[in-house]
C-alpha cells in the first residue's frame, strides 16, 4: 500500500509522484508552468526551518515552493514503509 503525504512532510532526498494539488486554478496553473502537476516524479532536495520554502527536483529543474503552497501538494511516496 503506497502512502500519500504532503510535500512538506516528505523527507529530504525522498522521491515520489505528485498525485494532487489542493488549490485554486491560479496556483495550479503556476505550479504546472514550472513542471509540477499530478503524475510528475519529484525529489525533495531541501527544506528550511521556520516554515521556509521547500525545493524539489522535477525533470532537470529545481523549483522553490513556499511552505503553504508546498503543504497543498500531495505526493505518493515510492516506498510504502514509514
Amino acid at each position, binding site marked *: 500500500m503506497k502512502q500519500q503525504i504532503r510535500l512538506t512532510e516528505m523527507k529530504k532526498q525522498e522521491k515520489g509522484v505528485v498525485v494532487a494539488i489542493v488549490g485554486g486554478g491560479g496556483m495550479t496553473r*503556476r505550479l504546472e*508552468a*514550472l513542471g509540477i502537476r499530478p503524475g510528475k516524479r519529484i525529489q525533495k532536495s*531541501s527544506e528550511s*526551518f521556520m516554515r521556509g520554502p521547500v*525545493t524539489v527536483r522535477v525533470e532537470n529543474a*529545481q523549483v522553490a515552493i513556499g511552505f*503553504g503552497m508546498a503543504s497543498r501538494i500531495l505526493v505518493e511516496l515510492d516506498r510504502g514503509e514509514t
Partner: protein
Amino acid sequence: MRILLMGNPNVGKSVVFSRMTGARVITSNYPGTTVEYTRGYMRIAGQRVEIADVPGTYSLEPTCKAEEIACRMLEEASDNVIVINIVDATNLERSLNLTLQLLKRRVPMVLVLNLWDEAGHIGVHIDAEKLEQILGVPCVPTVAVTGEGIKKLVERLSEARESDYEYGEDEKWHEIGEIVGKVQRITHRHHTPGEMLADASVKPFPGALIAIGILLLAFEVIRTIGEGLIGRVGEPVFEGLWAPVMLRLSSLLGGTGFVHDLLVGRLVDGEIDFGQSFGLLTTGLFVPFAAVLPYVFAFYLVLSFLEDSGYLPRLAILLDSIMHRVGLHGMAVVPMLLGLGCNVPGALSTRIMESRKERFIAGTLMAICVPCMAQVSMIVGLAGKHGARSLLPIFGTLFVVWILLGRLLERFIRGESPEILMDVPPYRIPHLGGFLKKMWMRIFWFLREAIPWVLLGVLLVNVLYSLGVIQFIGEVAAVVITGILGLPKEAVGGLVVGFLRKDVAVGMLAPLHLSVKQLIVACVVLTMYFPCVATFAVMIKELGILDMLKAAAIMVISALVVGGFLNLIL
C-alpha cells in the same frame, strides 16, 4: 517587419537578442532579469527589422507585472510579426506549455532550442527535425552565449510560419507528454558536483554558512578594490596631475569671483581641496570619477558574478522566511541588491513581485533603507575616518529601520503577499564575454546618469548659496534641522542637494566639521528622507502617483523620527 523574442524566464532570450542585434542588454542567470522590453535592429536580406526582447513568461496568463508586459506586447503585435519562441532544451516539457499557447495564436513562429550544449551535458538529446515535423514550425538548436546556431536561426527566419497544430485544452499536458516522448531521449547520468553544491547552498545548513561566507567575502572584495583604486589611482591622479592645472586656472581667473568659484571653487589655505572646494571642475569631477566610480566598479564586479553564477536565487530561498516578516518573499533580495548599486534599477526590478502590496513595500523599503553605492562610497570616505564607531551605527540603523518599517508596512498595507514560487537555475560558470560586456554597460550607465546630475548639483549649490537661498531655507527649517536632528543650520544644503544626488549631498557635509554623532544622524537622514530625483521618477511610474505620495510621506516621517531618535540617544 517585427520580431518578438518570447519564452520562459531565464532561457536566454536576452542573450539571443544581443547576439542578433548587437544591442546592449543586461543578461544574468536568474529568472526576471529583463523586466522591460528592449528594441534592437538587424538587417535581414537587406531589410531593417525591429527585434524586441520581451520579459520572460511561463504562460499567456500573466502572474506579475513583467509577465503582463510580455503578454500585452503579443496582443498588440500587428500582422507583420514573427515570434521567436526560445525554449530551454534542458527542460523541454515545461517550456512547451507556452509554445503550444503561442501556436494556438496562429502567429508565424520559429522555435529555438537554446542551452543545447547544457542539454547534451546532462544527457538530454532532442530530435529537432522530428519536433519540427510535429509542431509545423522551424526548430533551431542554439548555444546563445557562444553564438552557435544564431546564424542558422537568422537564415531560417524566412521559413517562419503559422502552425496548424491542433490540441484540446484539457489534453494539453497529455499532448505535451506525447511530443516529448517522441522527440526526447535521455541517457543515464550521475549527479554533477554542481548539483550537489546546488542542493547544499539552499539548505539552512550549510547554506546559511555559505551565504554568510559569500557576503563577507563580497564585502571584503568591494572594500579592498574600492579603497585600492581610490588610494592608488583616483587620488594620485587628481592630487598630482589635476590640482596643478586647477591652481593655474584659479590664478588665471584672478583667484576670486563668481566664475572662479563656480569652476574652481573656494581654495582651502591656498590649495585645491577636492572634497570641499565645490567647483564644477574640482569637486564636480572628483566625486563621480575618484570617490564613487572605484566603489561602483568593485560593487558591480561582485554583483555581476553573483548574478551570472546563479547564486542570487539561492540567497532568495535562504532569506525567504525573513522576507516574509516584512511582507515580501525571497525574490525581493533582487531589488534590494540592485538598489545597493543604484536605486533606479532597484525600483524597476520590483516588477518581478506579484502583488501591488509587495511592490509597494519593496520599493519603499529600498528607497528608504538601501543607500546606493555612490552614497555608500561618500559615507565611507567621510565617516570612515572614525572607523566602525560611525559606520556601524549608520548602516546598523538603516538595517534595523528596514526590519521595523517592513514589519509595520506588512501589517498596515492592504493586499496580499504571495509565497515564493521560483525556478532555481543551475549554477553556471559566468561567460567571460557576457560578463565583461555587462560590467562595461553598468559603468557606462553610471557615468551617463551620474555626471550630469553631479555637475547640476554642484552648480545648484553655487548658485543657491550666492543667491542666499540655502541660508534662507536653513533659517526657516532651523526648527527641524537644529531642533529635532541636532545638526547645524548649514547642513540644510546637503538636504536640498540630496533631492538631486546623494553623493554630492554627503560631500557637502565635509566642510561642516560635524561631530561623530552629527555625522551619523546626517548620513542616516540623507539616506532615508527622500530618494534622488532619478529614482523618484521611476517610482512614480512603477507605483503610480498616489502610492508614491504615500511612500514619500512615509519616507519623510520615518527620516525625522529616526533622526530625532538618534539625536536623543547617542
